């Protein structure tokens, strides 16, 4: 039942008003990124972007376009605030999770602007709940500088097969290694756990593989440390071009570019569970981008993406 009859002191006061006939179209997608308590909301005329970050190494974004909402009115170019995501989800699901066919919970989200709480009006079967959640100072999200031009390898897979692999991954492994290569093995997920190592290989011509664009194999990056004694002082330089005559010694460590901490990637399985397709991309720095195509209850498309830094904990060789 739409809430348009219940206008609250005039909508002109709010910088952001968003309405949904089915709140699950928002709550389901937010659950896919709810691995931390706090989330940054950024609304633009295009829609809503919600960001959750973890220890500066992982970032998850959910995009809900303005077309998904039954009403989406924004008075400014960009409206940002931070809220406790756990509390928000509790409010959005306040009428319980059961889905009786034909009965949906409607949502009206209103925000006055900086310093004001976020107001939620939720209605189901004539019962209305009003929630006010305090907002916090919005923090600047990390910019991974992941742009299409830097992408070295890209693969689009159907989520079904990746779900199976992720559900079987050896959780005793600290890292997940993702190898993408123009030659065998084309796309490989590897774990190194207590009982041994395991590899899941997807061939490029598999029918689960919708797109395969790999330009080069990117597994390791070599970092060479050079030690010099100069004027009695000890210097350590990191470089690949150096005059070896001045060297007193060096050691070399190999940093695998394609390893990611398992604990960071684990939350992404929620998004994987909701999605029908996933794109996996890595750039020249080894940053990983996972993009999930999610269809909501009404069949509309939303996106969730995860960005992850490569694991820098290196074992000296």
């Amino acid at each position, binding site marked *: 039942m739409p809430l348009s009859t219940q206008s609250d002191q005039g909508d002109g006061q709010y910088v952001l008003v968003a309405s949904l006939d089915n709140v699950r179209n928002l709550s389901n997608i937010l659950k896919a990124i709810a691995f931390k308590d706090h989330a940054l909301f950024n609304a633009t005329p295009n829609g809503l972007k919600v960001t959750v970050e973890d220890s500066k190494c992982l970032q998850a974004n959910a995009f809900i376009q303005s077309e998904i909402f039954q009403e989406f009115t924004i008075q400014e170019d960009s409206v940002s605030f931070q809220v406790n995501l756990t509390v928000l989800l509790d409010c959005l699901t306040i009428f319980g999770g059961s889905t009786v066919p034909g009965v949906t919970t409607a949502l009206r989200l209103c925000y006055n602007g900086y310093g004001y709480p976020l107001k939620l009006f939720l209605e189901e079967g004539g019962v209305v709940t009003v929630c006010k959640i305090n907002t916090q100072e919005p923090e600047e999200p990390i910019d991974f500088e992941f742009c299409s031009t830097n992408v070295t390898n890209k693969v689009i897979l159907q989520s079904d*097969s990746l779900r*199976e*692999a992720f*559900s*079987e991954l*050896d959780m005793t492994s600290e890292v997940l290694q993702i190898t993408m290569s123009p030659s065998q*093995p084309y796309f490989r997920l590897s774990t190194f756990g*207590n*009982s*041994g*190592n*395991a*590899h*899941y*290989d*997807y*061939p490029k*011509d*598999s*029918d*689960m593989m919708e797109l395969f664009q790999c330009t080069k194999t990117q597994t390791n990056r070599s970092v060479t440390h050079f030690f010099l004694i100069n004027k009695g002082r000890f210097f350590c330089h990191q470089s690949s071009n150096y005059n070896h005559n001045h060297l007193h010694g060096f050691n070399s460590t190999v940093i695998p570019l394609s390893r990611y901490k398992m604990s960071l990637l684990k939350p992404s399985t929620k998004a994987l569970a909701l999605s029908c397709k996933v794109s996996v991309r890595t750039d020249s720095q080894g940053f990983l981008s996972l993009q999930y195509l999610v269809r909501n209850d009404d069949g509309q498309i939303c996106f969730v993406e995860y960005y992850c830094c490569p694991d820098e904990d290196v074992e000296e060789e």
Partner: protein
Amino acid sequence: MDCILIGSNVKVLAKAVQSLSRLGEELYLEPQENGLALRTVNSSRSAYACFLFSPLFFQKYTPPKSSTQRCKMVIKSVQAVFKSLSSLEKTVEKCRIELDIEKSRLTFTLHCKHGLLKTHNLSFQDSESLQAVFDKEGCANTLTAQPKLLVDTVLHFPPSLEEVRVSVNDERVLFRNHVEDEAEQSKAMMTEFCLSAEEFDRFVVNMHTCITFCLKELRGLLVFAESSGLPVSLYFDEPGRPMVLSLTDSVLEVNFVLATLSEEGQPRNHNSNMRRVSEPPITDDFMNDDVDYIIAMEAGELAGDSDWPEPPRHALTPPRLHGAAGDQQESSGECEDEDGQQGAVETPVEESGRPPNKKFRSLFFGSVLPTPSQMSNRTLQSQEVLASDSEDEDGSPSP
């Protein structure tokens, strides 16, 4: 060793691993000329299981050139290879197992649908051969049943029940829960489940006996038996001697050897066991025993186990296990009781072997039984068929 399994046999192997995991924590993998053996033993060494897959089970089976390709690994790591058992049949097309001790390599490769390839390189340890010595053919009693029968029987007992007592005579088999503590007996719910001889595919009882063994291990076997649909054979005789549960078909042989509770205070070799009259005198009250075979609660002193050999509660005697390599095969040999101290249960000795007075009597159902005189004849006869001299290696009965 290199072998390839296809189709539904992958699930059979996975089920075997699951079944073994119910018994022990380590899986012993031993490729032999006559097939691939997967074995385990429980921590108290009172239960042993072996799955022997003949070369015909595999699409391709290459045995190792040297005979020392044996290894053991944590069973959980093998279970991790075969996750999601229910969808295994639908997703896995082929499974390859390669073992190369010299190169320290044990690899399971699963070729799945949509071209997905799963490769597991497992860590393992070298191990000695694990083989139990037991003699199925020498057992006095043999019962063969469809797995569903046993599964349905076991279903009636609570999952927490540790030990079960099985009593057998010419007409039927009784399964009862076994409660150690006398104090507990009066509080515990006693369940008794009776199966008539007709329910079994094969029912050969040469010795009326009552054995007690661990239910958990039987359940472990039934995990496999149920999915395979193969009939389960039980070989046993007197308490203290191990019981063997077995399934066979043309490409597979499964043996579970379980220790049974024995009587303490008896000398350890079978000679004296044989001479001991295990059955107390048959009384007329024998008829009353069958009155209560359906309902759980039993009567007072009259009925109950007066004719059954007493189920004593004493230390377990595990089957003899060979730890060293090059020991004899499993088919021949006599079982010896090992030192009762090894392994599990030490319980106080009962003064009299009789079970304590039961609560009340059930009043239903008559019984159809041979007369006591017939019973005793057969019982005495069966004693002669019994255990041979334990010292005698070739297993011939002693005069």
